[in-house]
Protein backbone atom coordinates (compact mmCIF):
# COMPACT_ATOMS: atom_id res chain seq x y z
CA UNK A 1 0.00 0.00 0.00
CA UNK A 2 1.38 3.44 -0.84
CA UNK A 3 2.32 5.91 1.86
CA UNK A 4 2.49 9.65 1.54
CA UNK A 5 4.89 11.77 3.55
CA UNK A 6 2.98 14.09 5.85
CA UNK A 7 5.49 16.91 5.50
CA UNK A 8 6.36 17.04 1.80
CA UNK A 9 3.61 14.93 0.24
CA UNK A 10 5.99 12.57 -1.61
CA UNK A 11 4.58 9.09 -2.32
CA UNK A 12 6.49 5.93 -1.43
CA UNK A 13 5.60 2.49 -2.75
CA UNK A 14 4.56 -0.41 -0.60
CA UNK A 15 7.55 -2.17 0.97
CA UNK A 16 9.86 0.78 0.31
CA UNK A 17 12.69 0.40 2.83
CA UNK A 18 12.69 4.18 3.30
CA UNK A 19 9.42 3.87 5.22
CA UNK A 20 10.82 2.20 8.30
CA UNK A 21 14.54 2.77 8.06
CA UNK A 22 15.52 6.20 6.88
CA UNK A 23 12.34 8.23 6.72
CA UNK A 24 11.50 10.53 3.83
CA UNK A 25 14.19 12.49 1.98
CA UNK A 26 12.74 15.63 3.60
CA UNK A 27 13.55 14.22 7.08
CA UNK A 28 10.00 13.41 8.18
CA UNK A 29 9.07 9.96 9.50
CA UNK A 30 5.33 10.44 9.56
CA UNK A 31 3.23 8.91 6.80
CA UNK A 32 -0.29 9.09 5.50
CA UNK A 33 -1.61 5.70 4.52
CA UNK A 34 -3.35 5.80 1.16
CA UNK A 35 -5.48 3.04 -0.30
CA UNK A 36 -4.52 2.21 -3.89
CA UNK A 37 -7.93 3.01 -5.29
CA UNK A 38 -7.97 6.42 -3.69
CA UNK A 39 -4.41 7.39 -4.49
CA UNK A 40 -5.34 9.46 -7.53
CA UNK A 41 -8.08 11.11 -5.56
CA UNK A 42 -5.69 11.75 -2.70
CA UNK A 43 -3.22 13.43 -5.00
CA UNK A 44 -5.74 15.98 -6.11
CA UNK A 45 -7.66 16.35 -2.88
CA UNK A 46 -8.13 19.74 -1.33
CA UNK A 47 -9.68 20.24 2.06
CA UNK A 48 -11.20 23.31 3.56
CA UNK A 49 -8.71 23.21 6.43
CA UNK A 50 -6.15 25.98 6.64
CA UNK A 51 -2.46 25.06 7.10
CA UNK A 52 -2.75 26.35 10.69
CA UNK A 53 -5.71 24.03 11.35
CA UNK A 54 -3.85 21.07 9.88
CA UNK A 55 -0.81 21.83 12.04
CA UNK A 56 -3.05 22.17 15.10
CA UNK A 57 -4.76 18.83 14.41
CA UNK A 58 -1.41 17.11 14.03
CA UNK A 59 -0.16 18.66 17.28
CA UNK A 60 -3.36 17.59 19.09
CA UNK A 61 -3.03 13.99 17.92
CA UNK A 62 0.62 13.74 18.96
CA UNK A 63 -0.40 15.04 22.39
CA UNK A 64 -3.36 12.63 22.70
CA UNK A 65 -1.34 9.55 21.83
CA UNK A 66 1.53 10.78 24.00
CA UNK A 67 4.07 10.33 21.24
CA UNK A 68 7.38 10.37 23.05
CA UNK A 69 9.69 9.62 20.17
CA UNK A 70 9.02 11.84 17.13
CA UNK A 71 11.55 9.75 15.18
CA UNK A 72 9.33 6.66 15.31
CA UNK A 73 7.93 5.92 11.87
CA UNK A 74 4.16 6.24 11.76
CA UNK A 75 2.21 4.03 9.36
CA UNK A 76 -1.53 4.15 8.96
CA UNK A 77 -4.60 1.96 8.54
CA UNK A 78 -8.38 2.05 9.20
CA UNK A 79 -9.52 5.04 11.21
CA UNK A 80 -10.91 4.85 14.73
CA UNK A 81 -10.94 8.60 15.38
CA UNK A 82 -11.84 11.17 12.76
CA UNK A 83 -10.99 14.81 13.33
CA UNK A 84 -12.99 17.16 11.16
CA UNK A 85 -11.37 20.30 12.51
CA UNK A 86 -9.43 21.20 15.67
CA UNK A 87 -11.64 20.36 18.67
CA UNK A 88 -14.11 18.20 16.72
CA UNK A 89 -13.65 14.47 17.19
CA UNK A 90 -15.75 11.55 15.95
CA UNK A 91 -14.93 8.25 17.62
CA UNK A 92 -15.59 4.80 16.22
CA UNK A 93 -16.13 2.87 19.46
CA UNK A 94 -16.23 -0.51 17.77
CA UNK A 95 -12.71 0.06 16.41
CA UNK A 96 -11.49 1.50 19.71
CA UNK A 97 -12.76 -1.45 21.75
CA UNK A 98 -11.16 -3.91 19.33
CA UNK A 99 -7.99 -4.97 21.13
CA UNK A 100 -6.26 -6.21 18.00
CA UNK A 101 -6.69 -3.02 15.99
CA UNK A 102 -4.45 0.03 16.39
CA UNK A 103 -5.91 3.40 17.28
CA UNK A 104 -5.89 5.45 14.11
CA UNK A 105 -6.67 9.14 13.77
CA UNK A 106 -8.05 10.49 10.55
CA UNK A 107 -6.66 14.00 10.36
CA UNK A 108 -8.39 15.09 7.21
CA UNK A 109 -9.50 13.44 3.98
CA UNK A 110 -6.94 10.76 3.08
CA UNK A 111 -4.60 11.57 5.99
CA UNK A 112 -4.12 9.35 9.01
CA UNK A 113 -2.00 8.96 12.12
CA UNK A 114 -1.60 5.82 14.17
CA UNK A 115 -0.92 5.23 17.86
CA UNK A 116 2.39 3.45 17.40
CA UNK A 117 3.50 2.85 21.03
CA UNK A 118 0.10 1.35 21.85
CA UNK A 119 0.13 -0.86 18.77
CA UNK A 120 3.60 -2.18 19.51
CA UNK A 121 2.51 -2.97 23.04
CA UNK A 122 -0.53 -4.85 21.73
CA UNK A 123 1.60 -6.79 19.25
CA UNK A 124 4.03 -7.71 22.01
CA UNK A 125 1.16 -8.97 24.15
CA UNK A 126 -0.25 -10.96 21.24
CA UNK A 127 3.23 -12.34 20.48
CA UNK A 128 3.69 -13.43 24.08
CA UNK A 129 0.34 -15.18 24.05
CA UNK A 130 1.35 -17.21 21.00
CA UNK A 131 4.62 -18.38 22.57
Amino acid at each position, binding site marked *: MPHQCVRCGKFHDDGDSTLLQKGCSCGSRLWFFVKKESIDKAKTITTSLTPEQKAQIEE*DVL*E*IIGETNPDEPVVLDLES*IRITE*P*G*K*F*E*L*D*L*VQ*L*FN*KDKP*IVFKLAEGKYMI*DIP*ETFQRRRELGEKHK
Partner: protein
Amino acid sequence: MIKFVGKFIKKVFRDIFRKRKALKIGLYGPPNGGKTTLANRLCLDWLGEEMGSVSNIEHETREVQIKERITVKKDNHELSFSLVDTPGIATKIDYEDFMKKGLTESESKKRAKEATKGVIDAIRWLDNMDVVIVVLDATKDPYSQVNITIIGNLAARDIPVLVVGNKTDLRKASIKKIKAAFPQYEVIGISAKKGTNMEEFYESLFVVAG
Protein backbone atom coordinates in the same frame (compact mmCIF):
# COMPACT_ATOMS: atom_id res chain seq x y z
CA MET B 1 -30.31 -21.94 39.31
CA ILE B 2 -28.02 -22.65 36.33
CA LYS B 3 -27.21 -18.95 36.19
CA PHE B 4 -26.34 -19.00 39.89
CA VAL B 5 -24.08 -22.08 39.55
CA GLY B 6 -22.40 -20.47 36.53
CA LYS B 7 -21.76 -17.28 38.49
CA PHE B 8 -20.40 -19.29 41.42
CA ILE B 9 -17.98 -21.25 39.23
CA LYS B 10 -16.83 -18.03 37.54
CA LYS B 11 -16.28 -16.45 40.94
CA VAL B 12 -14.24 -19.42 42.20
CA PHE B 13 -12.04 -19.31 39.10
CA ARG B 14 -11.70 -15.55 39.37
CA ASP B 15 -10.64 -15.87 43.00
CA ILE B 16 -8.04 -18.53 42.15
CA PHE B 17 -6.49 -16.56 39.33
CA ARG B 18 -6.78 -13.18 40.96
CA LYS B 19 -4.68 -14.43 43.87
CA ARG B 20 -4.05 -11.59 46.28
CA LYS B 21 -4.36 -8.77 43.76
CA ALA B 22 -6.78 -6.04 44.87
CA LEU B 23 -10.23 -6.26 43.31
CA LYS B 24 -10.75 -3.42 40.82
CA ILE B 25 -14.23 -2.08 40.27
CA GLY B 26 -14.61 0.31 37.35
CA LEU B 27 -17.30 2.92 36.74
CA TYR B 28 -18.11 3.13 33.04
CA GLY B 29 -20.74 4.88 30.97
CA PRO B 30 -21.59 7.82 28.74
CA PRO B 31 -20.69 11.37 29.83
CA ASN B 32 -22.88 13.01 32.49
CA GLY B 33 -24.49 9.76 33.62
CA GLY B 34 -23.25 10.37 37.17
CA LYS B 35 -20.17 8.13 37.44
CA THR B 36 -18.24 10.61 39.56
CA THR B 37 -21.33 11.50 41.62
CA LEU B 38 -21.69 7.78 42.43
CA ALA B 39 -17.94 7.50 43.13
CA ASN B 40 -18.23 10.46 45.50
CA ARG B 41 -21.26 8.91 47.21
CA LEU B 42 -19.41 5.60 47.65
CA CYS B 43 -16.30 7.32 48.99
CA LEU B 44 -18.30 9.57 51.30
CA ASP B 45 -20.22 6.58 52.66
CA TRP B 46 -17.13 4.44 53.35
CA LEU B 47 -14.10 6.73 53.46
CA GLY B 48 -15.64 10.01 54.53
CA GLU B 49 -14.15 11.97 51.62
CA GLU B 50 -15.06 12.73 48.00
CA MET B 51 -13.26 11.42 44.93
CA GLY B 52 -13.58 13.97 42.09
CA SER B 53 -15.31 17.11 40.88
CA VAL B 54 -18.67 17.04 39.11
CA SER B 55 -20.14 19.48 36.60
CA ASN B 56 -23.19 19.92 34.41
CA ILE B 57 -20.85 20.37 31.43
CA GLU B 58 -20.08 17.01 29.84
CA HIS B 59 -16.62 15.39 30.09
CA GLU B 60 -15.75 16.83 33.51
CA THR B 61 -13.73 13.66 34.29
CA ARG B 62 -11.05 13.44 31.61
CA GLU B 63 -8.53 11.27 33.40
CA VAL B 64 -8.91 7.85 35.00
CA GLN B 65 -9.17 8.31 38.80
CA ILE B 66 -8.43 5.58 41.34
CA LYS B 67 -9.39 5.36 44.98
CA GLU B 68 -7.71 2.45 46.71
CA ARG B 69 -8.74 0.33 49.68
CA ILE B 70 -12.46 0.99 49.97
CA THR B 71 -14.18 -1.49 52.27
CA VAL B 72 -17.95 -1.83 52.13
CA LYS B 73 -19.52 -3.65 55.09
CA LYS B 74 -22.95 -5.22 55.01
CA ASP B 75 -24.26 -7.44 57.80
CA ASN B 76 -21.36 -9.85 58.39
CA HIS B 77 -19.83 -9.41 54.96
CA GLU B 78 -17.00 -7.20 53.79
CA LEU B 79 -15.96 -6.20 50.29
CA SER B 80 -12.61 -4.48 49.75
CA PHE B 81 -11.72 -2.99 46.38
CA SER B 82 -10.10 -0.17 44.43
CA LEU B 83 -12.63 2.08 42.75
CA VAL B 84 -11.72 3.29 39.26
CA ASP B 85 -13.69 6.28 37.94
CA THR B 86 -13.32 6.64 34.17
CA PRO B 87 -14.00 9.45 31.68
CA GLY B 88 -17.33 9.27 29.88
CA ILE B 89 -17.33 7.33 26.63
CA ALA B 90 -18.75 9.18 23.62
CA THR B 91 -18.86 8.76 19.85
CA LYS B 92 -18.62 12.48 19.12
CA ILE B 93 -16.83 15.25 20.97
CA ASP B 94 -17.37 18.76 19.63
CA TYR B 95 -15.82 21.84 21.23
CA GLU B 96 -18.80 23.94 20.14
CA ASP B 97 -20.99 22.01 22.61
CA PHE B 98 -18.77 23.23 25.45
CA MET B 99 -18.87 26.80 24.14
CA LYS B 100 -22.68 26.67 24.33
CA LYS B 101 -22.25 25.92 28.06
CA GLY B 102 -20.17 29.07 28.53
CA LEU B 103 -16.56 27.95 28.06
CA THR B 104 -14.24 30.00 25.85
CA GLU B 105 -13.13 28.65 22.47
CA SER B 106 -9.64 27.72 23.66
CA GLU B 107 -10.98 26.13 26.88
CA SER B 108 -13.49 24.17 24.79
CA LYS B 109 -10.91 22.91 22.30
CA LYS B 110 -8.62 21.86 25.14
CA ARG B 111 -11.52 20.07 26.86
CA ALA B 112 -12.43 18.28 23.60
CA LYS B 113 -8.86 17.07 23.11
CA GLU B 114 -8.57 15.88 26.72
CA ALA B 115 -12.00 14.22 26.55
CA THR B 116 -10.95 12.27 23.43
CA LYS B 117 -7.79 11.10 25.19
CA GLY B 118 -10.04 10.21 28.16
CA VAL B 119 -12.21 7.92 26.02
CA ILE B 120 -9.11 6.08 24.77
CA ASP B 121 -7.74 5.77 28.33
CA ALA B 122 -11.09 4.49 29.68
CA ILE B 123 -11.15 1.77 27.01
CA ARG B 124 -7.49 0.87 27.63
CA TRP B 125 -8.25 0.41 31.34
CA LEU B 126 -11.10 -1.97 30.68
CA ASP B 127 -8.82 -5.01 30.62
CA ASN B 128 -7.66 -4.25 34.18
CA MET B 129 -11.17 -4.40 35.63
CA ASP B 130 -12.56 -7.29 37.67
CA VAL B 131 -16.07 -5.87 37.92
CA VAL B 132 -17.73 -2.97 36.08
CA ILE B 133 -20.59 -0.76 37.21
CA VAL B 134 -22.20 0.76 34.12
CA VAL B 135 -23.73 4.08 35.13
CA LEU B 136 -26.57 5.26 32.87
CA ASP B 137 -28.70 8.38 33.02
CA ALA B 138 -32.17 6.94 33.61
CA THR B 139 -33.82 9.98 32.03
CA LYS B 140 -32.21 9.16 28.66
CA ASP B 141 -32.92 6.52 26.03
CA PRO B 142 -30.82 3.46 27.00
CA TYR B 143 -30.59 2.19 23.40
CA SER B 144 -27.56 4.27 22.45
CA GLN B 145 -24.51 3.15 20.52
CA VAL B 146 -22.31 3.99 23.50
CA ASN B 147 -24.33 1.92 25.99
CA ILE B 148 -24.68 -1.06 23.70
CA THR B 149 -20.99 -1.03 22.72
CA ILE B 150 -19.82 -0.79 26.35
CA ILE B 151 -22.11 -3.55 27.62
CA GLY B 152 -21.44 -5.77 24.58
CA ASN B 153 -17.68 -5.48 25.09
CA LEU B 154 -17.96 -6.26 28.80
CA ALA B 155 -19.89 -9.41 27.93
CA ALA B 156 -17.26 -10.36 25.34
CA ARG B 157 -14.51 -9.93 27.95
CA ASP B 158 -16.50 -11.90 30.53
CA ILE B 159 -16.38 -9.09 33.09
CA PRO B 160 -19.21 -9.15 35.69
CA VAL B 161 -21.52 -6.15 35.24
CA LEU B 162 -23.90 -4.21 37.44
CA VAL B 163 -26.06 -1.71 35.55
CA VAL B 164 -27.08 1.39 37.49
CA GLY B 165 -29.90 3.67 36.33
CA ASN B 166 -28.97 6.96 37.95
CA LYS B 167 -30.94 10.20 38.50
CA THR B 168 -34.14 8.51 39.74
CA ASP B 169 -34.86 11.76 41.61
CA LEU B 170 -35.79 13.29 38.24
CA ARG B 171 -39.34 12.86 36.97
CA LYS B 172 -38.33 11.65 33.50
CA ALA B 173 -36.28 8.74 34.91
CA SER B 174 -37.34 5.24 33.85
CA ILE B 175 -35.62 2.15 35.24
CA LYS B 176 -38.13 0.00 33.35
CA LYS B 177 -36.68 1.11 30.01
CA ILE B 178 -33.13 0.21 31.11
CA LYS B 179 -34.30 -3.19 32.37
CA ALA B 180 -36.03 -3.81 29.04
CA ALA B 181 -32.88 -2.82 27.14
CA PHE B 182 -30.50 -5.01 29.17
CA PRO B 183 -32.63 -7.86 30.55
CA GLN B 184 -29.66 -10.16 31.17
CA TYR B 185 -28.16 -7.80 33.78
CA GLU B 186 -28.94 -6.76 37.31
CA VAL B 187 -30.31 -3.19 37.03
CA ILE B 188 -30.54 -0.93 40.09
CA GLY B 189 -32.21 2.48 40.13
CA ILE B 190 -30.51 5.05 42.33
CA SER B 191 -30.03 8.74 42.83
CA ALA B 192 -26.32 9.10 43.55
CA LYS B 193 -26.83 12.81 44.16
CA LYS B 194 -29.54 12.32 46.83
CA GLY B 195 -28.26 8.95 48.08
CA THR B 196 -31.54 7.19 47.27
CA ASN B 197 -31.65 3.36 47.18
CA MET B 198 -27.97 2.99 48.03
CA GLU B 199 -28.70 0.03 50.33
CA GLU B 200 -30.05 -1.97 47.42
CA PHE B 201 -27.09 -0.84 45.32
CA TYR B 202 -24.60 -2.17 47.91
CA GLU B 203 -26.50 -5.45 48.14
CA SER B 204 -26.26 -5.89 44.37
CA LEU B 205 -22.58 -4.97 44.45
CA PHE B 206 -22.02 -7.80 46.94
CA VAL B 207 -23.81 -10.22 44.63
CA VAL B 208 -21.89 -9.19 41.50
CA ALA B 209 -18.45 -8.58 43.04
CA GLY B 210 -18.45 -10.50 46.30
